[in-house]
């Protein structure tokens, strides 16, 4: 049915959305250049592109957040001005943002009604919404308890509330911005079923993502954006992931990580019965035991918030815990005065934190300052016992920037002025170049472009091949599967199971990530 709409119907049916010559500049940066696109009704249309390619800007124009410098928007064939979100909603456009726009301590019902109330009094509005919500839930399998508060709901359900909000406002066109970033694989599958159901009911869906697999799984048509331009629009059935990746980046990209089988040696890291209770009294880690050997990459998979962050923080030396940690057979102090990042580094543990903006870098500081953090006591950076040698640090920074292909290679540029991928390369260069015995890496490619991902993965594999131990934490299952040699899955502060990467698959890991053990499944 959808294929018929995209091809055969193109001549007779007006596109649900047509953009003609949309341009938008922010100062000297041209975010969108002369973009034209036609999205047919009753289809799922993917928009794919790297970070900063202009996808979000384009959608913000469509949703009335920005006004385009030039170009026209046609909704169902009629030229439409969209000066604000109200106008977008009136034109039948609904948006599901990457970061949900929900009021956490309101009920589902209140969130759905907010801004679309029926009159000044709330009670009749809520009653009407309850009725309509029941109908929508039945029609599209979007069951959510209308009286639950948002904070009680899982992320997957919160997303359903966002979709219900759009449908309640009679949206015919639904835009979803990176909708699966926070979902488990099974939640993502459920979302895709919902989207396909919506499409079959005649809704038009625009899916913005950087995940090639999602595009292949769920879309009918796909448009590729690169550097503010729409480089291609193709039928999904007539393309493949590597072709799309090439169109996104502008060159051939290796999607699989190229690596030899691991040659693991002795244990570098041994973790025994590690437990963490956080400030609020919640137990974040429950008796974790784990080991990482020299020459292997151990991946920790799991949906964000299941204890991975706490594990990294304990190992990195900035959260106290109970249990035992051995590095090269020697016990590490977990709570005492010598339990800090400085001591850990001195003993050969390097750490690329999950959140490079908050923990990995000081964004307002220069690249050369960021490149030395944690190692600023090293003798080669001292001029005499009292002063650091800035010249030595800058020279060192320049050399590392070159080896890690940081662009632009300017040590005196503030960290915030680099792109996400280059910021990550700065952190990685700082940690890897000290030749640690154990590297802790959290979300190495979050918010990083495909081209830079390839490079970062190569560096991590190279470190492994030098016989170092690597503990990788990532919420991207693809990344874990392609990079890690051995995979441990975390759920609710526990390790649900360990698998060899070569002997497992996404379905098995997905079940473990959802807390389903083998017996139950």
């Amino acid at each position: 049915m959808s294929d018929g709409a995209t091809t055969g119907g193109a001549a007779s049916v007006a596109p649900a959305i047509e953009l003609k010559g949309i341009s938008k500049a922010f100062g000297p940066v041209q975010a969108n250049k002369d973009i034209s696109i036609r999205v047919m009704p009753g289809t799922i249309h993917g928009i794919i592109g790297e970070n900063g390619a202009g996808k979000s800007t384009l959608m913000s124009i469509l949703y009335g957040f920005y006004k385009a410098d030039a170009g026209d928007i046609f909704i169902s064939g009629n030229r439409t001005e969209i000066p604000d979100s109200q106008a977008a909603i009136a034109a039948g456009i609904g948006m599901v943002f990457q970061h949900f726009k929900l009021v956490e301590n309101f009920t589902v019902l209140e969130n759905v009604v907010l801004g679309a109330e029926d009159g000044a009094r709330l009670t009749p509005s809520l009653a009407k919404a309850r009725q309509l919500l029941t109908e929508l839930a039945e029609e599209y399998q979007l069951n959510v308890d209308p009286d639950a508060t948002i904070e009680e709901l899982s992320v997957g359900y919160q997303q359903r509330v966002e979709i219900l909000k759009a449908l309640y406002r009679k949206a015919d066109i639904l835009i979803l911005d990176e909708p699966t970033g926070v979902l488990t694989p099974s939640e993502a599958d459920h979302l895709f079923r919902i989207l396909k159901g919506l499409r079959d009911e005649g809704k038009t869906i625009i899916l913005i993502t950087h995940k090639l697999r999602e595009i292949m799984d769920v879309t009918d048509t796909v448009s590729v954006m690169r550097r503010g331009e729409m480089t291609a629009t193709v039928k999904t059935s007539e393309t493949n992931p590597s072709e799309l990746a090439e169109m996104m980046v502008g060159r051939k990209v290796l999607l699989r990580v190229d690596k030899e089988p691991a040659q693991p040696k002795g244990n570098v890291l041994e973790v025994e019965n590690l437990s963490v209770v956080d400030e609020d009294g919640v137990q974040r880690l429950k008796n974790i035991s784990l080991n990482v050997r020299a020459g292997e990459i151990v991946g920790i998979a799991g949906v964000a918030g299941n204890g991975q962050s706490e594990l990294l923080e304990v190992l990195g030396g900035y959260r106290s815990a109970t249990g035992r940690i051995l590095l090269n057979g020697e016990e590490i102090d977990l709570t005492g005065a010598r339990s800090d990042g400085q001591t850990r580094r001195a003993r050969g543990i390097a750490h690329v934190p999950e959140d490079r903006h908050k923990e990995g870098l000081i964004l307002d500081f220069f690249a050369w300052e960021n490149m030395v953090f944690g190692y600023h006591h090293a003798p080669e950076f001292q001029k005499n016992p009292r002063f650091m040698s800035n010249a030595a640090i800058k020279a060192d920074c320049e050399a590392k920037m070159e080896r890690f292909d940081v662009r632009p290679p300017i040590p005196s540029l503030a960290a915030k002025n680099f792109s996400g991928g280059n910021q990550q390369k700065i952190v990685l260069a700082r940690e890897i170049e000290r030749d640690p015995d154990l590297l802790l890496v959290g979300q190495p490619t979050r918010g990083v472009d495909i081209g830079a991902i390839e490079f970062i993965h190569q560096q991590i594999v190279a470190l492994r091949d030098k016989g170092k131990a690597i503990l990788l934490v990532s919420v991207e299952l693809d990344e874990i599967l392609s990079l890690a040699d051995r995979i441990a899955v975390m759920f609710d502060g526990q390790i649900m199971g360990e698998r060899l990467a070569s002997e497992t698959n996404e379905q098995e890991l997905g079940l473990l990530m959802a807390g389903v053990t083998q017996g139950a499944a």
Partner: protein
Amino acid sequence: MDFLTLLQIFDSSVRLATPLLFACLAGLFSERAGIFDIGLEGKMLAAAFFSAAFAAISGSVWVGLLAGIGASLALSLVHGLASITFRGNQLISGVAINFLAAGLTVLIAQSWFQQGGRTPSLSGNARFNEITLPFADAVRDIPYFGPIYADLISGHSILVYVAFLTVPLTWYLLFRTRFGLRLRAVGENPAAVDTAGISVLRLRYSAVAICGVLCGLSGAYLATGLQALFVKDMSSGRGFIALAALIFAKWRPWYALWACLLFGFLQALSLRPDAVEAVTQVKVPGQLLDALPYILTVVILAGFVGKAIPPRAGGEPYVKER
């Protein structure tokens, strides 16, 4: 302690709770919308002065009331401009308003009336007089109920009744109307309101304006109801006590009523050291009684009374993200 003394203490508790209640509800509107307001004190003081001054000049307390509300509203809008439009620091703006009001009121008072920074005493129609409710005299002789009705419930100025009626009104507005839903949402997650196509700016300005009006009522009651003139610093920390009551009340209207009554009761106790002594059999120093409401304020603000979760977007200016 006899029944009549107790009744008298409760009676003054009600009077003393009134300015606190207005200010507390004022803060409730503002903070529920995400704008922290430590300038309640300053607005109250400005309203107290302008209401007394205009009542003295015109001879009409209603003119005074309007002037007081106007002054408080003007300061509210300054706070709104600083914290909503220019996205400044809300605490600093509030502090500035407190200083401004403390200095300006005395300065203008001296310049207008030359009485050492105070206004002339108000009398007759220039202040709010006590209202006797119907049948107050008729039922006075009925045991217990009579005195409660005639002395405790009847016999206050109109603003006292307005203050107590504002509580259910606030509750209804916040929890039973569209405006309330949006107002609470904007204090929790302004981005949700913005993407729903509603103006965050307009909502927050409305909240700040309501806060200004209520602070105006609070200050006007202080100078033209509770007292009969303006004197330097006459709000004496009531704005901060109201803020403590607001936290104690966890930003809820009905709890705010009880919190303000508690503070009013403590203030009333300090007026009757004899009664306190009669009950406790200990001579409690008057200074300690005077300090009680302030001590409780410190205890509440230091977070000893349970965990109060303020509106999540409180204190943060809203910046539209890309």
